[in-house]
């Protein structure tokens, strides 16, 4: 076991830090409070990701033949850590490089790859994930949005909800029902968001402006070439995507940085002398480090080319625990942060609540751990 970064990995991290220092505007910490899905940050992200792409830092972990440099999953992790801890200046484009692009590479037709990959590698694409529906959240396989094959088109009718980035996205990775079988009746369509019949309504949220939406599909017509993979292959494809997504955001890194920032503020203003505050900070630190090392165990497997299994749910839940403990620490000892005294801590607090809800609720992670890590008998349905 080697818990130290190689010189090359450390140099890559420093290169990213240097890039961020040279590129982000002076008022970035306050600006980033708009949230990764906000119009302001989405617009900024197009310029930022363009510069990242120019410097070879947008998709360095992708294969060389499709615009990457073939760097290993450790570099992907370092890249994700440095971006997320900086407040994610890539905005919603982080999804592109984490899972949309890799999923396109694995399952997309040559025409789909040709159509969508250049905008991702160029830093201009914004995707949204049409998964949840009003009646289908954690029970995703119950989704009802229907795509009916009519001649050379699919006609799509239904509704999605809690959809991040939908307000400004140019393409939707849409799950819809093409058959009756609970899981094998689900397919994926890649749907341009300017297709007639799509209506997007923003939902006010706790986590930053412009992040959550309802999306309505009223007789939306897309060509059959929009089908991604085969009909009925969606469940297999999103299982692949979610493994990438679940570890895609290294939230433990921002939680740790927020914790350290809070401690620095407390020390500066004389709030660090009591034992209680120091004990609580240490508990938060332990959970952050537990989440980080559990995540690194997963990255180790990926770096060795092994399939990542249910242990990613364990690392994910560890991250939820860390996020909560840091957020609670700040609320208890620096409540003024939520009133805008410390923008970075406010930003962390807004985003932290997402950890246990998005990309598979924490309870779903616990179910996966119970079923597939502990091998417990399943709950009867």
């Amino acid at each position: 076991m080697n818990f130290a970064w190689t010189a090359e990995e450390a140099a890559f991290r420093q290169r990213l830090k240097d890039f961020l220092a040279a590129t982000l505007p002076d008022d970035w910490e306050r600006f980033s409070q708009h949230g990764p899905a906000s119009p302001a940050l989405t617009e900024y992200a197009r310029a930022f990701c363009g510069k990242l792409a120019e410097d070879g830092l947008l998709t360095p972990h992708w294969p060389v033949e499709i615009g990457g440099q073939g760097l290993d999953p450790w570099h992907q992790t370092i890249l994700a850590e440095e971006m997320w801890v900086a407040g994610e200046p890539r905005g919603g484009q982080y999804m592109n490089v984490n899972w949309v692009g890799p999923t396109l590479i694995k399952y997309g037709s040559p025409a789909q790859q040709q159509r969508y990959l250049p905008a991702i590698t160029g830093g201009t694409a914004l995707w949204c994930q049409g998964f949840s529906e009003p009646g289908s959240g954690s029970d995703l396989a119950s989704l009802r949005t229907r795509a009916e094959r009519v001649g050379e088109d699919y006609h799509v009718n239904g509704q999605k909800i809690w959809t991040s980035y939908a307000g400004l996205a140019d393409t939707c990775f849409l799950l819809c029902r093409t058959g009756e079988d609970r899981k094998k009746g689900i397919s994926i369509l890649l749907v341009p968001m300017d297709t007639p019949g799509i209506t997007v309504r923003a939902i006010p949220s706790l986590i930053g402006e412009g992040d959550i939406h309802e999306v309505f599909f009223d007789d939306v017509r897309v060509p059959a070439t929009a089908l991604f993979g085969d009909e009925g292959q969606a469940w297999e494809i999103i299982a692949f995507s979610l493994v990438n997504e679940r570890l895609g955001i290294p939230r433990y890194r921002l939680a740790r940085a927020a914790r350290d920032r809070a401690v620095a503020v407390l020390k500066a203003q004389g709030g660090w002398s009591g034992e209680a505050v120091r004990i609580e900070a240490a508990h938060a630190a332990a959970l952050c480090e537990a989440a980080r090392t559990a995540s690194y165990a997963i990255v180790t497997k990926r770096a060795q080319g092994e399939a990542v299994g249910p242990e990613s749910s364990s690392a994910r839940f560890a991250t939820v625990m860390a996020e909560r403990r840091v957020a609670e620490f700040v609320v208890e000892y620096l409540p003024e942060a939520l009133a805008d005294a410390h923008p970075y801590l406010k930003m962390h607090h807004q985003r932290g609540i997402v950890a246990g809800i998005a990309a598979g609720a924490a309870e779903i992670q616990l179910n996966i751990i119970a079923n597939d890590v502990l091998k417990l008998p399943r709950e009867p349905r």
Partner: protein
Amino acid sequence: MDLSLSSDQIAVLDALDSLAKPYEAAPLHGTGFALTDPGLDRALAGGGFLDVGFDPDLGIATAGLVVERLARLPQASEAASSAIVRPLLGDGVGSPLCMVEEDKLLRPVRFLREGATVVVAGRSVTSFVATAGQVRAEPEALFGYPVATLLSLPEARTDHAVDAALLRTHWRIALAAESAGLLAAALASVCAHTTERQQFGRPLASFQGLRHRLAEAQVRTNGVYWLAMKAAATLDPADAALAALHAQETARAVVYDFHQFMGAMGMTLEHPLHLWTYRLKLLAGELGGRGGNALAAAETLWGSA
């Protein structure tokens, strides 16, 4: 960064598994609070497993793996201190090795008996070999270790040229590595029972009230493992304090749950669960317990108040 085991570590663990196999299968009904096996202790010493920390190619990182694996056995053996602390003191120090804090002498001490080596952590590090008159066995103690009370500290003790803070770092690593194995074995034991035991026409473990808490225990236990292994690899005092803190906090969170999930079986000595959980209970208070380890971590990470 690479968290995979080296080929040497895999070889050591394979050999240890072979040695441990017969002990895993030992009959466990009615064992009393603590189970020991002198044959296991002799086999460990003979096989050199507790000396891997002296080998610079294997180091404390491998010792941590050995301690974690041994702690999963129902038999309590004095492995943690010998494997992880003793390399600081030199191989002339005998075993069992018993750790005491100079200002907390009334606490029950694991494996303390006549002839044991007692390491005293104060401002400096000293040791002595216990005599019969300095030791009172506590056969009725509610712990999963054989314990005794240290009645007095002799004036004449061997001084060790070891920084007391470094000693405590190794002690914390030993505590965390042992806890990781105890937690993993206790969790496995509870999962096995609740999978087998049927109530209301279905296995207990099919009820979400248990499943989610067991899954959360897995997450915590996994965290203890990785924090312990990291601390064993880095020997960093902050890593060690965080590992010890997380181990003790996890024990606090899961031990009563584990017995609770077993129902009335969780109150008996017929089921072996206590052989792991009642060891965790003694580790819960070492080195100042959660508060002490948290303050040590905070001091190392962020400096003094």
